[in-house]
């Protein structure tokens, strides 16, 4: 199945625009890569069979007003950017001061240069699908927040899948200047048979803060492979919450790089899987410099014949003294055919650090179950209450009220759908 590789390599030679150095580099990396198999550590538990078919490029399209209205989330009060099958729709309304949105293809030559300096800065070289994305790179969106700008209005990025049997490569670059503040909400949806390969690169300046929520709501035949690579400046702060549902194949690589001192990352990640979903979350936290802090919590519910894969790596480099990093992952298996494969990893090269990880896989705790039942709650109801509570705990900690309400109600709805 290295057909995909061949195609990406071919495409990299066809496109003709100023982004060619990115494509050229990716081409040579791809030429040296091989297609993952069971022995490839990063894909050990995640077969890529579902990708085996011929995908057509998606074409630009528009949605009816009615369909657009359904994508609307008025309660969030967000500035919405909508991608239809990978094609960004025109953005309406006034942009807040300090925020600039530019398509790669629209950049002036000065800006093109600075874009070229930013691209590929946070994405690891060995990331196969990142390289495929690079090789096929034609266009993308650059979201830039100027130094000191405080953008409190959430910027919602909606990725909707409508065209079946298509392949969508999308690319977003987010840069926050020093002391900048921004709030980004990712919203992925669709159920059609589509292959999406997405690369998100983010870079936070010194003392910048990014609040981030992502809802990966694609289901069924919507196949998603995406990478989220974020570099933190000095004393920068990243607060991220991810809620994912499963589909036939969904793989998310979530990287956080502490490139400077005193940065902090609070990462909450949740998934709810059912049917024959295959969901794979790979997170990699690199502490390159001292005094950084990471707190990661991962919770999963796995029902039916679904499979969850989690790989959580924390890497403390030699100079990263006084780092405090903790990862906690808990998974509940809800059915006898559900599966989970978890691998929390610590790789530590500095001695004066506080690092820990904990992982549990289990059913619901009998004690709490019995407690509820002793108060008269029926068993299946008690089970549902506890499982939902297990997930809601993380959402409840979300500070932004309307985002919290939105995700809470989404979570509930998704949970009850899973119970059926």
């Amino acid at each position: 199945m290295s057909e995909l590789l061949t195609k990406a390599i071919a495409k990299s030679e066809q496109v003709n625009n100023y982004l060619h150095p990115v494509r050229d580099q990716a081409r040579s990396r791809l030429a040296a890569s091989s297609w993952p198999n069971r022995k490839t550590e990063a894909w050990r538990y995640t077969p890529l069979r579902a990708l085996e078919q011929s995908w057509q490029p998606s074409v630009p399209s528009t949605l009816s007003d009615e369909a657009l209205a359904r994508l609307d989330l008025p309660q969030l009060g967000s500035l919405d950017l909508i991608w239809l099958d990978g094609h960004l729709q025109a953005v309406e309304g006034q942009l807040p001061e300090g925020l600039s949105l530019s398509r790669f293809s629209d950049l002036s030559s000065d800006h093109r240069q600075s874009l070229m300096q930013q691209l590929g800065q946070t994405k690891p070289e060995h990331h196969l699908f990142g390289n495929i994305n690079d090789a096929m790179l034609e266009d993308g969106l650059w979201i830039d927040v100027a130094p000191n700008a405080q953008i409190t209005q959430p910027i919602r990025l909606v990725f909707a899948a409508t065209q079946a049997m298509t392949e969508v490569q999308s690319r977003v670059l987010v840069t926050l200047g020093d002391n900048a503040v921004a709030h980004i909400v990712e919203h992925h949806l669709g159920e059609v048979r589509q292959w999406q390969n997405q690369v998100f690169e983010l870079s936070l300046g010194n003392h910048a803060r990014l609040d981030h929520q992502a809802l990966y709501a694609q289901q069924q035949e919507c196949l998603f492979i995406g990478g989220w690579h974020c570099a933190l400046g000095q004393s920068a702060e990243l607060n991220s919450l991810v809620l994912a549902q499963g589909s036939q194949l969904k793989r998310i690589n979530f990287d956080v790089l502490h490139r400077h001192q005193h940065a902090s990352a609070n990462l909450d990640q949740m998934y709810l899987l059912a049917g024959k979903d295959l969901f794979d979350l790979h997170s990699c936290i690199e502490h390159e410099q001292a005094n950084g802090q990471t707190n990661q919590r991962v919770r999963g519910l796995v029902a039916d014949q679904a499979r969850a894969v989690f790989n959580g790596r924390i890497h403390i480099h030699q100079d990263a003294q006084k780092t405090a990093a903790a990862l906690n992952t808990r998974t509940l298996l809800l059915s006898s055919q559900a599966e989970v494969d978890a691998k929390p990893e610590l790789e530590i090269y500095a001695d004066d650090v506080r690092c820990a990880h904990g992982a549990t896989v289990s059913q619901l705790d009998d004690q709490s179950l019995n407690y509820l039942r002793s108060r008269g709650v029926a068993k299946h109801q008690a089970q549902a209450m506890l499982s939902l509570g297990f997930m809601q705990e993380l959402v409840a900690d979300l500070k932004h009220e309307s985002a919290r309400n939105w995700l809470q109600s989404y979570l509930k709805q998704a949970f009850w759908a899973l119970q059926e």
Partner: protein
Amino acid sequence: MAEQIEQALKREYEAGFVTQVESETLPPGLNEEVIRAISARKNEPEWLLEWRLKAYRIWLEMEEPEWAQVSYPKIDFQSISYYSAPKSMADGPKSLDEVDPELLETYKKLGIPLHEQQMLAGVAVDAVFDSVSVVTTFREKLLEAGVIFCPISEAVHKYPELVQKYLGSVVPQKDNYYAALNSAVFTDGSFVYIPRGTRCPMELSTYFRINELNTGQFERTLIVAEEGSYVSYLEGCTAPMRDENQLHAAVVELVAMDDASIKYSTVQNWYPGDENGRGGIYNFVTKRGICHQRAKISWTQVETGSAITWKYPSVILKGDDSVGEFYSVALARGAQQADTGTKMIHLGKNTKSTIIAKGISAGKAQNSYRGLVRMNPGAQGARNFTQCDSLLIGDRCGAHTFPYIESRNPSAIIEHEATTSKVSEDQLFLCRQRGIDTEKAVSMIVNGFCREVFKELPMEFAVEAGKLLEVSLEGSVG
């Protein structure tokens, strides 16, 4: 301060001497002829030669594994000699009086007197020197209880049906690269058989010594505990200090039938190489046990030696209500690299496993825990608890944790925790303020860190092992 601690961790390798004996050593190289030669020397039956050759052919097809967190130059398997034995042992094991005094002296120097009257009462020893067993003590006394304890090369002749039944039954020839190699060229090791309902009256132990230059040691140990029996077994290992690396690729198979219990302890003190990573043993070992109904296998290991350790003592929990345990201390100093851990494969209902792994890294050493806990669909109500703690000493070493957790059963519970810490300045200050010097203090704190594991070592060896660790941690404080 870190320097002081590192100093305190330095030590002399006391087992690093060479015994001057005349040896008969096969020339370096590996091919079918060599395997036939080994087999012929041991006068083996045809089936075993065939078994070896099959393993060799499998090995030729395999690739050297590269997934471990260790790095070393490629091993040239043709430069190693696969058989070496003291000339005096040419006619096979004999009674103690006939054994070359030089050999007896070697073991005495290592703290293991082989004269029964001088030994720790209650401990039987099989002493393996390069490729052969020198002597096995207390055999008659053990036989009275029905317990068989003898070199495996002898068991092949005396108990062929037992050996043929169980050899390779837990670790098949094709299991992995080093197991295949071992199956092709294994030389000596111990065979233990505990009959039904018998509690082995003594602690059993095997002491492995590599002496000859350029030889590898490929021992094979097989322990079968019949229904309701119990045995506690300990192995120790040392080698001379040499600038060349030497290969040790052992296979250990344990079979615990219904209600049987095997306690297997290792105190591994192979030569670790010098400060700069010159010399030392490459220790690539496959150890695995299988538990039938309500059986229990407990691995305890104290790994202080070897340039490279690659070792994952495992338990297949096949029978319902069976129990697997793994208690490990891995100390890596200087340029040592250790990649060690365990696999607990839960197949049966209500099976339980406990993993306590303590890793200590100092100097430029790299120490990794790698473990697998798997709950298969049939592992109804199974449980695992894992605790991995790392202690880092100095800022040039590394401590890593790679646990694989796989669950296929919703009623199974897996709990895994890992932490890292260091010997803190506050702890050292408290000790020194109370009058305890740095060296003692570090040794005490490190021992404290390992306590949960040490208390699992059999009583008879606790003192012995304690001393060994003391030696490992003592040294010249500048």
